[in-house]
């Protein structure tokens, strides 16, 4: 046998490892940092080029106008972190607004409608989660069916857009938190920020949050490690459904209407925001903060386009594409360099 009585231990505590540690800890944050830096660069370019771009309100407007997207994207972040995807969010927004508007129009009190509206997406999410987990249906397809279902239902309820005149809703819609003359945020922003903070905390500080990462890293291993994979997965889709519904409620505050065509293509915006924010579509890596940055990037691109103001429809698309391209490639190169 090998002489194991003289185990050569000293070389294990290598100084090299210490150096490596600091370095490794950073690599996980690089995508988010890169996004942040590029975002600032993009903003500066905007301020430099356009009058009035530097107004505080321009930045706040990005939040005001994207609060619902932010909420939806947070839910999507959870789903994508487990390696899944949720295509139903846009349609859930439509369904939520339609149901809310219809019930309000029928004279139901806001106190009843609000929880009901929030329940819609939650229940749908729960259903999709169960189908995905118990019957091993691919998330893409399960949620695509959910998308058809939700949009189909809202179309069935009413194909017209329904105005919301309920007092509570109007108040919520017009609630403004003013900081200065002409500098304000809406209630939606406050709600979105709360959701973001809570979601980030849950992800970083709770078992549930860590299980999400584990499943995204390797679902089979997570199962063998004795983690509640099924429960977590179902919870994640339920949460995303809830976020979509909450997004729908914010959307109905934002537009004071319910409509079966609301939120079309929003799922793609949400996915894009999440991915731009550095979350890996294969799961297991990324942060809610990244998602916030991703939403800001999309919002800022749109703001730049509006400030530019002389682009016709197709140039709008092309320029959005080019900005997206420039951003993503730079982000990629920065990240790669840093690694």
């Amino acid at each position, binding site marked *: 046998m090998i002489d194991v009585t003289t185990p050569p231990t000293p070389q294990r505590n290598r100084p090299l490892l210490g150096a490596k540690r600091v370095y490794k800890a950073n690599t996980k944050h690089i995508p988010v940092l890169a996004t942040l830096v590029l975002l600032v660069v993009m903003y500066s370019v905007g301020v430099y080029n356009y009058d009035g771009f530097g107004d505080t309100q321009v930045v706040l407007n990005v939040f005001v106008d994207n609060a619902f997207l932010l909420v939806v994207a947070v839910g999507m972040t959870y789903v994508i972190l487990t390696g899944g995807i949720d*295509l139903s969010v846009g349609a859930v927004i439509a369904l939520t607004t339609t149901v809310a508007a219809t019930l309000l129009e029928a004279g139901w009190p806001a106190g009843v409608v609000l929880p009901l509206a929030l329940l819609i997406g939650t229940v749908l999410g729960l259903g999709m989660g169960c*189908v995905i987990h*118990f*019957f*091993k*249906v*691919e998330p*893409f*397809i*399960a949620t*695509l*069916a*959910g*998308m*058809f*279902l939700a*949009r*189909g*239902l809202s*179309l*069935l309820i009413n*194909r017209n857009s329904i105005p919301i005149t309920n007092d509570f809703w109007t108040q919520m819609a017009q609630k403004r938190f003013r900081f200065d003359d002409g500098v304000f945020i809406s209630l939606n922003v406050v709600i979105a920020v709360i959701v973001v903070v809570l979601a980030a905390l849950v992800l970083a500080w709770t078992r549930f949050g860590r299980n999400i990462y584990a499943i995204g890293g390797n679902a089979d291993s997570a199962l063998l490690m004795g983690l509640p994979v099924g429960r977590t997965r179902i919870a994640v889709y339920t949460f995303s459904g809830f976020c979509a519904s909450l997004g729908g409620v914010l959307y109905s505050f934002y537009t004071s209407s319910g409509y079966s065509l609301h939120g079309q293509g929003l799922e*793609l915006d949400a*996915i*894009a925001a999440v*991915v*731009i924010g550095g979350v*890996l*579509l294969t799961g297991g890596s990324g942060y809610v903060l990244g998602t916030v940055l991703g939403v800001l990037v999309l919002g800022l691109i749109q703001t730049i386009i509006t400030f530019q103001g002389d682009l*016709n*429809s*197709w*140039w*709008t*698309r*092309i*320029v*959005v*594409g*080019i900005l*997206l*391209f420039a951003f*993503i*490639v730079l982000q*990629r*190169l920065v990240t*790669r360099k840093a690694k």
Partner: protein
Amino acid sequence: MTNLLRHRLFWPIAVLVVLLASNLVFSNNFFTITLQDGHLYGSLIDILRRSAPLVLVALGMTLVISTGGIDLSVGSVMAISGALACLLIGDLSNPDSTTSVLLVVGAAIALCLVFGLWNGFLVAVLGIQPIIATLILMVAGRGVAQLITDGQILNVHSAPYRVIGAGYFLAVPVSFLIAAAAVALTVALTRRTALGLLLESVGGSPTASRLAGIRARRITIMVYVFAAAFAGVAGLIYSSDVSSADSNAAGNLIELNAILAVVLGGTALTGGRFSIAGSVLGAVIITTLDITAVSVGVPVETTLLFKAIVVIILCLAQSPTFRAKVFGRFATKKAATREAVAA
């Protein structure tokens, strides 16, 4: 019998049969095929003809998905290819000359190849996540198509061009023949060469594939080029069908339908094993579903619900766990034992 039930394509085929059968009950003359002006005419022929663009796009999508990627830009590529073709044909001195139309078609497809290379470059060389890499072209590409057509619908009057989407050869729709040829080409390419194996390997495990000496980068680029080329041809069929290029509507949401077709056909979105027959079947199911909704007279408001329900049923039927849970564990267990004994 159990073997048949176990076949990967059993459930998609079953759903297709049910869809067709429902037409037998709820709509008139669905299965009549007549000869009209020297070509076949009937709802079944419509299904073949209308499936063509989706089949083409789904073929490309299958290859892309098999490497673990996804291509959202196919719809925009369709729009661009149709737009460019119509623009060029509009400039032809003689739009009825077959050679010039062929040249135009070549040019349009060549442009699509470039777009495919672009996607492949972003994914394979820069290492950008496929969904976001192709999102760029999805957004910008439609803009490019609108730029080409100046936002208008471009009409063309060209007999040879019309043949692609609306013509017949030996009484059979040309678009169907094109799709069939594409299927044959893809099958040959993936199953007669080693491409299929290498694709599945790259999709199954990129790291292991690299260490096995597979040039994953090259293969990945190639796959996006294929997807774009097929999308380009689909775009030509789409625009030729109505002899005009509508850069806004062409290929709208086709990426979703194509992905749906691929997954219904039994290919996993995570990459690896793929089934071309399955994707084709998936595409035909989706087209049949659309046509059935119209011919059975499903109201507009419920069409989406109808689609959702069919998709859900098909997914559940395909899920072995669901079958086991619903039809009882007993049946599957017995079958397994029997099989084991046989082996």
